[in-house]
């Protein structure tokens, strides 16, 4: 056993961490080895010296209370920070969400069925003439709340008025309303504030 190994063993013997088997060996050596005895005495003196240093006289109850208050303050600060974040971040988030909803609404309104729809353009044979056709349907007419008062028919205009071959198709051309219905009552969406205008 080297001197360093002996010192290490004695140090652990003194502080009680030496395994039992080694403890018996060191214990027997301490009986008749002056060098080992001197090392053990030094270790015990150092331990006593280190442990003799006093601790501050602390009022533990006050310290515990102070720590508790510091934690309370920390939690309050966290809540205040979270509240600030909610005040400043949530409105911005809501604005973004509202914009997104608005955009989605516009897209749905444009693409939804029942709204204006442009059919595929095509070529239609009308007797001996070939005519390019584009059919546009809608938007749907508002439905009057009251009974029909009168109905006015509007005849075909332009070449449809003069060419009898085209006249049957005049109602399919969206150059003017095919008919106008005058009815009593308000339409569902008509604002009452502006009535009767």
């Amino acid at each position, binding site marked *: 056993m080297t001197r360093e190994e002996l010192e290490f063993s004695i140090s652990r013997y003194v502080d009680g961490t030496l395994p039992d088997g080694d403890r018996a060996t060191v214990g027997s050596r301490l009986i008749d080895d002056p060098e080992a005895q001197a090392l053990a005495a030094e270790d015990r003196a150092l331990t006593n010296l280190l442990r003799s240093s006093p601790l501050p006289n602390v009022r533990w109850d006050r310290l515990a209370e102070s*720590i508790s208050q510091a934690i309370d303050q920390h939690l309050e600060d966290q809540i205040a920070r979270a509240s600030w974040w909610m005040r400043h971040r949530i409105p911005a988030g809501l604005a973004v969400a509202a914009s997104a909803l608005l955009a989605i609404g516009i897209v749905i309104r444009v693409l939804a069925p029942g709204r204006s729809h442009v059919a595929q353009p095509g070529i239609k044979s009308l007797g001996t003439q070939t005519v390019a056709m584009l059919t546009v349907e809608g938007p749907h007419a508002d439905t009057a709340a009251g009974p029909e008062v009168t109905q006015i028919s509007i005849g075909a205009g332009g070449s449809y008025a003069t060419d009898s071959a085209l006249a049957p198709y005049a109602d399919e051309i969206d150059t003017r309303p095919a008919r106008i219905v005058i009815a009593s009552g308000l339409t569902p969406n008509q604002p009452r504030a502006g009535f009767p205008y």
Partner: protein
Amino acid sequence: MKVVTASSPTDGELAGRAINSDRAAFGELVRRYQRQAVAVSYRLLGNSHDALEVTQDAFLKAYSSLATLQKPEAFGGWLMRIVSNLSLNFRRSRRTRSQLPLDDFLGPADAQAEGASGSEWMAASGDPVRRLEGQELGKKLQEAMKALPEKQRMAIVMFTIEEMPQKQIAETLGCSVEAVKWHVFQGRKKLKEMLKDVM
């Protein structure tokens, strides 16, 4: 020294409840470990006010970091790691003392000694000569401790002085139990050399 009776909840139980926002459970952990925290910090810093400030900071940091505590039963070692790290950082940064009324936590003798000498080691004797000798010895011991490498100093503070279990010290220092024994041995060897005149 923490005292846990048979009916007391274990550290693991208290820490587990504290993780679930039980403030009372954390309060119990504070009462259980505040003395050890102050002692370790004081041995590392050599100053009551600094040790108290570090202890407060350490418990606050522990509370706000509870979610990162992987083994609630190892709360003690984890807390001591926070205490020792904060103490070492405090020394390195030589932070200005806070304006907290820390004297309120100290008994009269400590509050006065703090301003007078800066070293409280061995200064408790009523005999002026012995008190002076004690102060001298305390200063030498403190200087010797400061001269040790950090891990050796912490191992001696926690094991030899505070008598903490080596397993807990190993968790605190982030090393094996065998390494703790070696740090203690090496530190003691250097201290014996530096203090041979006064031993």
